[in-house]
């Protein structure tokens, strides 16, 4: 060997023969298996983390609760002269209506009577009203799902220690939860206002961001010459994808809520009456515009990839037939790329569904009682509702937060499943 080929001094690259080799080999194999286990363990940790998260949420969203009645049904039965053996359900409608009227405020009775006179209500309806408004079960203590299933005895002992408490299994995710508006009472609080707010905001976000995002992607892929401006736009889009979401919130606060207040509050469109205080810029429209800016880079990047995947031969064939650029894009490129574009858009939208910080900065309401009815309404969204309920120290609100999280996760799962199904269906089609 000449000097140029000699290995650096101190390192011996010659193959170790014989016993040394065998020892070396086995130690190398040993460390290889150890590290393989370590890598496997890391992945198992990830899977376990996800499962723990989901199990914790499910645990909190179902369980047993101990109720105490505000007014004991027995007292009510006695007030109408019924014997203590009967239950409220056995009473005739008139007696129940009497109990109701005697125990609630005049205004409340008047409201229900105006809604639907008590003579016209069925016995079940009046019974439900009496239970809800007069008996008023109040939750005293809650337990999680696993504790309820496994530790039934201890729970019953604890309940026995609380006077007049009854035990019941409760699923915090229920039809009532989905249908009730926000309320300070955990027994009747629901997520309806938040769900409607989220859906409406997402709809408007989609309507705004989809055309602009796809338009920008088309521009960057089909029309843009390779000059400085377009390279700048491309780099800009990539940078924006990495900006923290709270910065978008502050942009939205300064521009959409404050600067463009006449537009976003609907005053410019004459959409409101009711005085200057009823409307300000903290509306669904501001939220949707902010979210659109947030998801725009994601949509653009995904759409670009989808458009890039269209084979050049398709475009060239179209040009060869004399089509203009836009005709090519609209009639050939886009139909081919739409599945990929839609998949990317749905994924971007599902990211917007979970966004909380920008909307807090914009000013989603702490307590709002009427569902949002249009883009100029005040609003709250599901993640913000979860945030508020998580902040409350009472256990019942933890359960409500878990129930709301389940609803949110189901919503996201649906969106993602739709995207995946679309992706699979059309990749199959592509192959065939």
């Amino acid at each position, binding site marked *: 060997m000449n000097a140029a080929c000699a290995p650096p001094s101190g390192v011996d690259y010659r193959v170790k023969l014989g016993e040394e080799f065998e020892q070396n080999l086995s130690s190398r*194999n040993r460390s*290889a298996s150890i*590290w*393989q286990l*370590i*890598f*496997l363990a890391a*992945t198992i940790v*990830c*899977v376990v*983390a996800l499962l*723990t*998260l989901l199990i*914790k*949420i499910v645990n*909190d969203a179902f369980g047993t609760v101990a109720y105490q009645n505000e007014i004991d049904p027995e007292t009510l039965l006695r007030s109408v002269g019924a014997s203590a053996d009967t239950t409220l359900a056995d009473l005739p409608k008139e007696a129940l209506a009497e109990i109701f009227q005697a125990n609630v405020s005049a205004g409340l009775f008047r409201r229900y009577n105006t809604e639907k006179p008590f003579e016209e209500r069925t016995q079940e309806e009046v019974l439900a009203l009496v239970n809800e408004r007069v008996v008023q079960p109040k939750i005293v203590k809650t337990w999680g799902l696993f504790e309820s299933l496994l530790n039934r005895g201890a729970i019953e002992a604890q309940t026995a220690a609380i006077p007049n408490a009854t035990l019941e299994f409760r699923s915090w995710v229920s039809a009532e939860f989905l249908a009730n508006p926000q309320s300070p009472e955990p027994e009747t609080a629901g997520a309806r206002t938040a769900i409607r707010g989220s859906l409406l905001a997402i709809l408007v976000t989609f309507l705004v961001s989809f*055309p*602009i*995002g*796809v*338009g*920008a992607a*088309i*521009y960057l892929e089909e*029309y843009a010459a390779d000059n400085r401006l377009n390279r*700048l*736009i491309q780099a*800009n*889009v*990539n*940078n924006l994808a*990495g*900006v*923290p*979401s*709270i*910065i978008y919130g*502050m*942009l939205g*606060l*300064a521009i959409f809520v404050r600067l463009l207040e006449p537009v976003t509050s609907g005053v410019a469109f004459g959409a409101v009456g009711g005085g200057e205080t009823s409307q300000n810029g903290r509306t669904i429209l501001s939220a949707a515009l902010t979210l659109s*800016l947030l998801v725009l880079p994601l949509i653009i990047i995904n759409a670009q990839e989808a458009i890039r995947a269209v084979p050049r031969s398709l475009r060239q064939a179209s040009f060869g037939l004399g089509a*203009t650029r*836009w005709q090519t894009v609209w009639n050939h490129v886009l139909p081919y790329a739409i599945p990929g574009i839609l998949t990317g858009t749905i994924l971007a939208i599902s*990211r917007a569904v*979970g*966004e*909380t*910080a920008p909307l*807090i*900065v914009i000013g989603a309401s702490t307590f709002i009682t009427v569902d949002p009815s249009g883009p100029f309404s005040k609003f709250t969204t599901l*993640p913000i509702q*979860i945030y508020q309920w*998580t*902040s409350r120290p009472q256990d019942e609100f933890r359960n409500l937060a*878990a129930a709301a999280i389940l609803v*949110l*996760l189901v919503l*996201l799962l649906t969106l*993602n499943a739709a995207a995946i199904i679309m992706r699979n269906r059309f990749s199959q089609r592509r192959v065939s």
Partner: protein
Amino acid sequence: MSRRARPGETIIQGFLLFCGAVSILTTLGIVLVLVQQSTLFFGSGELDLGEFFSGTEWQPAIGKFGIWPLFMATLVTSFVGMLVALPLGLCVAIYLSEYASPRARGILKPVLEVLAGIPTVVYGYFALLFITPLLRSVFGANIVQIYNMASAGIAIGILIIPLIASMSEDALSAVPRSLREGAYGLGATKLEVAVRVVVPAALSGIAAAVIVATSRAVGETMVVAIAAGAGPNLTLNPFEAAETITGHIVRISGGDLSYDSIDYNSIFALALFLFVITFVLNIISRAVVRRFREVYE
């Protein structure tokens, strides 16, 4: 045949150019808004730039505007997050690209996608109601406060594992088979191929992944708002409560401020600081990829 310019085409091209320009307008908007309000803040006479960058107390009500308590909390939570996410994410990436059977991959990839898709407020819930009690039972309730940076940091770590894993795995998979096969041909074990051949070849991509993940951890808001604490506190102890830059912005703007007070302008200064940091990190990551990427063809 002469080429007649179709007016429709020009209009459409104009519209598309506008769409492309929206992103530039967004960046301009962000920079303008942040800079304008920050100049109001810095120029208000109540503080000077030096105090902003060197002060150790942040209490706008009494005129203290040192950024270090907030910045330190951001650093501590991000550090804890990276401590969790970097080893786990890298190991998952190596496993996915080198070892995993298609069936394992079929389970792992959806798991990572689900982890990435869970909203951050859910991670905040998890941090406050599961990780904090866990830490308190392991380390003792008098060491771990009920709001602390460690559980927020751990939740952030879990949150960014998918980011590191997927970006690193992309980088690892991009290394051509020929390198691996050459190493196998020389008698290397699977571990040696993975660690001594593939990883160094993909290092630029992995470094980019780490930097992007750090940027994400720094910008994370909801987890720290729920679990890390609600008052600026200059400390290195992760078991204490402290407020990060993002948590502070959310707490203050959740309370909505008088629109021209120094408090309102101060959050824009904080946001500008945050924006500059994440922007610089993102640029660095792209530069790293461009400069150090090995080209094999």
